[in-house]
C-alpha cells in the first residue's frame, strides 16, 4: 500500500523533522519519497503586485533548498523532488498527494513544543482539516532519529468509536510493509468527579477496553499477530505516559468523529495524545472508502 510518500518540506527545523520521518518510513517500507515544496501563488492576493523576478528568485532558492535536503537524505532513499504552487501549503500537499497517488503525507508538527513534545502548528492543523490522505505528524526532534533505525514498531490506537476499522487496516498493512511488530493500544482515562467509586469505574472502563482490544484482535486478518495493551491513567495524557515507547515507533490514530467523511480532523483524545507522544503520529481518515 505505501508505495509513495509525500513529504511537505520547508527549509526549517520542522521541515527537517518531516523529511527525516518521511525518509525513515520510505526506507523501511521501500516506498518512493516525493519531497514537495509548496510555493505560494503570487497572484492570490490583491495587495502585493506579482513580480516575475521575485518568483524566479524564490523558485531558484527553493531548488537550492531541495538540493540540500536531498543531499542530507542520502542515496539510501529513492526520492524525487518537486516544486508546486498553491494557495496554501495544505492545499498544495493534498493536491500533490493526489497527483502522485500517495498514501501518506508527512509534515512537521512542531511549533515551539516544549521538551520535544509536539504542539500542533498551524500548517499541520490546516492539513488535518483538508486532507483525505493519512497524515503523519513528525514531532520536533524527529530529525535526530537516524533513517537506519527504521520502524521498530507500529502501534494502532483502537477506540470504540467509528474510525477504528480503518486505523486497524492501515496499521496492519503498515506493519507488514515495514516488517515491524504490531501493537494495539486502548487508552482509558478515569477522570471522574469526586465521590464516585473510583475502583468500580476503573474496573468497568478497563473491562470495556479489554473487550475493544479483543474485538480488534479478532478482526485482524489471519496470520497477523499483535500484542495488545490497555493503558490507564487519570487522564489520557497520563495513560500515554504510562506506556513504553520505542524510539523508532509510529502510532496510528483515527480522525475525529466530527470530521466530514473521509476527511481528517484531530479529535480531543488524539490531540491529547499528540501532546504527550514522544513518537510520530499518523492520523487516518475515518473512512477511506
Amino acid at each position, binding site marked *: 500500500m505505501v508505495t509513495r510518500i509525500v513529504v511537505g518540506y520547508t527549509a526549517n527545523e520542522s521541515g527537517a523533522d518531516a523529511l527525516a520521518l518521511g525518509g525513515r518510513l520510505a526506507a523501511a517500507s521501500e516506498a518512493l519519497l516525493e519531497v514537495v515544496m509548496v510555493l505560494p501563488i503570487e497572484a492570490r492576493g490583491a495587495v502585493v503586485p506579482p513580480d516575475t523576478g521575485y518568483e524566479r*528568485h524564490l523558485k531558484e532558492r527553493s531548488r537550492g533548498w531541495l538540493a540540500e535536503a536531498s543531499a542530507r537524505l542520502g542515496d539510501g532513499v529513492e526520492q524525487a523532488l518537486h516544486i508546486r*504552487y498553491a494557495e496554501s501549503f495544505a492545499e498544495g500537499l493534498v493536491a500533490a498527494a493526489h497527483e502522485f497517488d500517495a498514501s501518506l503525507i508527512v509534515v512537521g508538527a512542531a511549533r515551539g513544543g516544549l521538551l520535544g513534545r509536539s504542539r500542533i502548528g498551524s500548517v499541520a492543523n490546516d492539513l488535518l482539516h483538508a486532507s483525505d490522505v493519512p497524515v503523519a505528524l513528525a514531532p520536533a526532534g524527529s530529525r535526530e532519529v537516524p533513517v537506519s533505525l527504521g520502524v521498530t514498531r507500529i502501534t494502532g490506537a483502537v477506540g470504540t468509536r467509528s474510525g477504528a476499522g480503518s486505523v486497524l487496516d492501515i496499521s496492519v498493512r503498515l506493519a507488514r510493509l515495514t516488517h515491524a511488530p504490531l501493537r494495539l493500544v486502548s487508552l482509558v482515562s478515569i477522570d471522574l468527579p469526586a465521590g464516585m467509586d473510583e475502583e468500580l469505574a476503573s474496573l468497568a472502563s478497563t473491562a470495556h477496553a479489554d473487550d475493544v482490544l479483543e474485538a480488534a484482535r479478532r478482526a485482524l486478518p489471519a496470520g497477523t499477530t499483535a500484542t495488545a495493551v490497555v493503558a490507564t491513567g487519570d487522564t489520557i495524557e497520563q495513560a500515554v505516559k504510562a506506556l513504553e515507547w520505542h524510539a523508532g515507533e509510529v502510532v496510528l490514530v483515527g480522525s475525529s468523529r466530527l470530521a466530514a467523511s473521509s476527511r481528517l480532523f484531530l479529535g480531543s483524545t488524539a490531540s491529547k495524545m499528540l501532546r504527550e507522544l514522544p513518537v510520530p503520529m499518523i492520523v487516518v481518515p475515518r473512512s477511506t472508502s
Partner: protein
Amino acid sequence: MTQQEPVQHHTEPHAPLTTASAAIDGKEGGISKKGLSAGSVGLIGAIVIGISCIAPAYTLTAALGPTVSEVGVQVPAIILVGFIPMLLVAFGYRELNRRMPDSGTSFTWATRAFGPWVGWLAGWGLVAATILVLSNLAGIAVDFLFLLISQIAGNPEIADIAANPFVNVVTCLLFMLGATWISYRDMQTTQKLQYWLVGFQVLVLVVFSVAALIEVANGNAFDATPIELSWFNPFAVESFSAFAAGLSLSIFIFWGWDVTLTMNEETRGSEKTPGRAATITVVTIVILYLLIAVSLISFAGVGTGEYGLGNPDIQDNVFFHLAGPILGPLAVLVSLAVLTSSASSLQSTFVSPARTLLAMGHYGALPEKFAKVSPRFFTPGYATIVSAIVASVFYAVMRFVSENVLWDTITALGMMICFYYGITAFACVWFFRSVWFRSVRNVFFTLLFPLIGGVILAVLFFTTLIDSMDPAYGSGSNVFGLGLVFVLGMVVLLSGVVIMLWQWRKRPAFFRGETLSRAVAED
C-alpha cells in the same frame, strides 16, 4: 534571478526535480494549470492592484497641500502634465522588466547598464524613497486613526492627541510593527475584500468631491473660488521653480502606477490585458485626482485662512482638516477610506525595498543576510525587518526635528523618486543601445520615450535640489540655514555614498563586476 546566475549557493540536486510552473519558465513542465503562478491576474485584478498601490486617498491627502503651496490653483494642470514623465519612464521600465525580470529592478538594471557604482546608488535611491514613504504613510495613518476615534466617540479633542509627538511616535511605531508582521507573514487580503476596499475608497473620494461642489453651489463654502479654465493651463504657473517643484510632487502622486504595466506580461486573458489595465487605472486615477483637486480648491481656495489649502497648518494632511467641514457626520467615511488605503499601500510598499535589498544581498552588494528568504512565508524576511526599523527610526527622529515632517518627507520623496527613476530611464536607453534602430517600436520605446522621461526627471531632480537649499522651501523648516528638504535629500544620498564605499571595502567582488556584470541587449 536574471538569466545569468553568478552566485552559486547550492549544489545540483541528487534526485530528479519537477516543477509545475508554466508561468515562470514557459518552457518546462508544459502548460499546466496548477503551475500557473504569476499568470493569473485578470483585468479587474490588475486594476485593483494598481489603484491600491497608488492609494489615491492617501496620496492626495498627503500631496495636495504641498502642491497647492507650490503652484496655487494650477494643481489640475500639474496633475495632467506630471503624468507625462511618469508614463515615459514606465515604458522604459516595462522594456527592462521584459528583458531582465529581476526582483532588484532599478538596482539590477542600472548595474547591468552602467556598472556597479551607479547601480548601487540606484538601488539606494529606491530603498530610500520607499522607506521615506513608509514613514509618511504610517504618519498619515496615525492622524486618521485618532480622527476616526474622535468621530466615532463624538469628541473632537481626541483628534488633537495625534499632535502630541510622543503619542504620535508610539502609535506610529505600533502601526509599523503591525505592517511588518503582516508583510513578513505575507498575509494578504483576499481579492474579493480588496475589490470592496478599493471600490469603497474611490466611491468615498467621489462623494467627498461632489459634496464639496454642492456646498460651493449652496454658498456654504469656506472660500468659494470660481473654477476657471486657467487652472488647467501649466503655463500659468508663476515660475519654473514652482513648476518643477509641483511636477516632482505629481511624480509622487502617480508613483506605483507603473506596476500595472510591469507586473505581468502573462496576465490572464489576452496580450492586451496589461495595457488595458494600465490605461483604465490611469484614466480612473487622473479623473479622480482632477475631480478632487478642482472641488477642494473651489471649496477652500488656496488662501492661508483656517481651511484654505494654503494654510501651512493643514497642508500636510488636507482631508484630515476638510472632511469635517464638507461632509459633517459623514466625514467618518473619509477617515475610513484613507485608513484602508494607507493600510494596503503600506503592505505593497513594504515589498519593494525588501525585494531590492534582497537582490542587493544576493549579488553581494550588501551583506548576504539581506538575501535571506523566510523558509515558511517565502518573503525576504531580514530585508523586511531592516526596512521597517529604518523607517521607524527615521519617522521618530523626523517627528521631533520638524513639525511639518509629513510635508517635508513628501517633497524629499519626490526628489528621491526623480533620482532613481531617472537613473532607471537612462539605464533602459543605454542597455538597449545596440537595438535602438532595429524597429520603429524600438526607436520609441527603448530610446525616445525613456530618454525624454529621464531628462525631465533629471531636470526636476536638480532644480528641486538647488531650490530646496532656500530655508523657506517646502514647509519652511530649516537646519543651519538650509532648507530641511535639501538637508534630508543630501543626508539620504550622501549616507548612501558612505555605505557604498564601506561595502566596496568589505565586498569588492560586486564592485569589480564579478557577481553582476555589465551587459548590452542582444538581437
